[in-house]
């Protein structure tokens, strides 16, 4: 445990140093830039709640990727599942109008169903024909992207808008603000807690994890490996769909052009940083959200372009993973040396 925290912190520190070196080469002041990043993402109630709200799709897609990778299925389809979830919630919000108590759960269920539908399609192709879900989900991402682009440009287009987008969804489907905090954050936290229990404490989660570690062992032990594969695909698709629904319901309240592109690979990236751990996914998700949120403010007061956040994220992934794996080797070597010394004494 201490090892994991130590190598994680070390990785973040090294990554920030590498990022600082890149800024120095570009002729920017790293300390001022990081200061501005922190100020606009964590400094005060306003920035902090914005960061938390922006972390919702990141954490949920990260959770989706982490659970999938830890259980075996290589579900890289979070971007496609997210836009399908968002589309389903938007459709519901445009055509159904109920009181908020009913409307919000209904739209959330629609979002979950939309995401699960798209991941279920990939799962079905694997089950029925043996097509590798790795490439299938990637191709389905592209198809989902073009399909939703068509939907918002033709059948659901808002005639009054200048760029492709749908009209706003029914007011009763907006996620309410609780004080300064948007309630989608609470739903995200609830999803993390529920998934943690399912994954770490329930029998289903145990079977998924065992299958992920050794599917032959799981099958011989009596797990329904094929059924579990489908279950994991559906659950992870549902999480990504929920992310899409919350983006629409908590944010712009309509399906904007390029909605999915903003979160395309972030979930997978966060799951990789978190080494597929669920609590770690939450931490890294908020961390990445802070970088993204702070970058916009940083651009205003320093002359560093906000795109540096994307470079910083890629550096973070590489360095954190490399540090973790290299640190494991170093720790093992230290432990071995200590044992040898104790034995000699």
């Amino acid at each position, binding site marked *: 445990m201490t090892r994991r925290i130590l190598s994680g912190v070390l990785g973040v520190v090294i990554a920030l140093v590498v990022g600082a070196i890149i800024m120095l080469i*570009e002729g920017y002041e790293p300390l001022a830039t990081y200061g501005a990043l922190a100020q606009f993402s964590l400094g005060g109630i306003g920035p902090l709640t914005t960061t938390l709200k922006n972390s919702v799709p990141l954490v949920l897609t990260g959770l989706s990727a982490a659970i999938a990778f830890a259980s075996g299925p290589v579900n890289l389809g979070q971007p496609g599942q997210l836009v399908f979830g968002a589309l389903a919630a938007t459709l519901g919000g445009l055509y159904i109008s109920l009181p908020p108590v009913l409307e919000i759960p209904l739209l959330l269920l629609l979002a979950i169903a939309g995401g699960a539908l798209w991941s279920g399609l990939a799962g079905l*192709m694997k089950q029925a*024909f*043996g*097509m*590798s879900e790795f*490439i*299938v989900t*990637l*191709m*389905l991402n*592209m*198809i989902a992207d*073009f*399909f939703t*682009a*068509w939907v918002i*440009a*033709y059948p659901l287009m808002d005639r009054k808008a200048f760029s492709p987008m749908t009209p706003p969804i029914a007011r009763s489907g907006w996620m309410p603000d609780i004080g300064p905090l948007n309630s989608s954050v609470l739903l995200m936290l609830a999803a993390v807690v529920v998934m943690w229990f399912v994954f770490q404490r329930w029998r289903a989660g145990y079977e998924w994890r065992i299958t992920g570690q050794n599917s032959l062992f799981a099958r011989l032990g009596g797990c329904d490996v094929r059924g579990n594969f489908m279950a994991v695909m559906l659950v992870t698709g549902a999480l990504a769909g929920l992310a899409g629904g919350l983006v629409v319901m908590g944010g712009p309240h309509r399906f904007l052009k390029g909605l999915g592109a903003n979160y395309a*690979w972030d979930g*997978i*990236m966060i799951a*990789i940083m978190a080494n597929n751990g669920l609590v770690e996914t939450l931490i890294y998700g908020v961390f990445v959200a802070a970088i993204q949120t702070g970058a916009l403010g940083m651009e205003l007061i320093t002359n560093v*372009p906000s*795109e*540096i*956040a*994307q*470079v910083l*994220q*890629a*550096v973070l*992934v*590489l360095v954190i*993973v*490399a540090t973790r*794996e*290299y640190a494991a080797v170093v720790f093992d070597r230290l432990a071995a040396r200590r044992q040898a010394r104790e034995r000699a004494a």
Partner: protein
Amino acid sequence: MNIIVGLITGMISGATPILLAALGGAFTFYAGIFNIAMEGMMLMAAFFAVLGSFLFHSWLVGLLFAIAGAMILALIFIFFSVTLNTDEFVTGIALNLFALGSTTYLLRQIFKVKGVFTSKLIDSIPNIHFPLIEKIPLLGPVVSGRNLIVYLAVIATIFCYYLVFKTRFGLRLRAAGYNPNSLDSSGVRTSRMRIQSLLLCAVFCGLAGAFLSLGYVTLFAENMTAGRGWISLAAIILVDGHPYGIALISLLFGFFDGLGLFLQGYGVSSQFTSMVPYIATLGALYVYARRNRERERNAL
């Protein structure tokens, strides 16, 4: 008649970047690296091709810049995956993100634009005309007048086959993937073969990227590879890396790519025509999976 020529030339242009990237990926495939960084390498190459061509007004410099750009990613890949032993899948994904982020960043930093950069100062890669062949009806306009990179891709396919299957280098390359331990014990370092395969991959992806931004069109757009690297990965997996098989599959994808553009002329909205190559990839995967299953059944 013109429609057929148009479809075939469209097929060739669509196939070229996928073919080149897949040939590059085939080297790493044989060397036993799960390399998914072709997408990022192509994107880097496409950006640096425009940069080089813009700065020096020469497509040749652009081409060299493109290869250098892809090489940067290959070197990072080597550092993390071969030297530090980081997971190849993770490294590949991170590199693709890095390529997307850094090209977007550099586009803003160097050219001061967001989204798309184009300029009259960019020198595009020329089309090659063969005076005599051009006169042959039907065949002439297809074989002559294509982009230089297209002819390079044809040569590259044969070169790749020769290198992998007919040379000592190719034998060692395949051994690195097939049985690294026995290659190591025979005195050839597997890690060195893997490094060389990644560098070769960068050269090919560099050509592919340069074709995208200096041949197919003369501009750089954010994320302009649009999944072509992933399609090339699918092509490699579908034919187990065989260069001639890759050429065939690439032409098939190219055909669907061209078909999409062709349908657009008939009023099908562009969002649907853009889906066609990806749906074709799914179709190809289906055929592959079925063939695999039958083979397994016959083996029992």
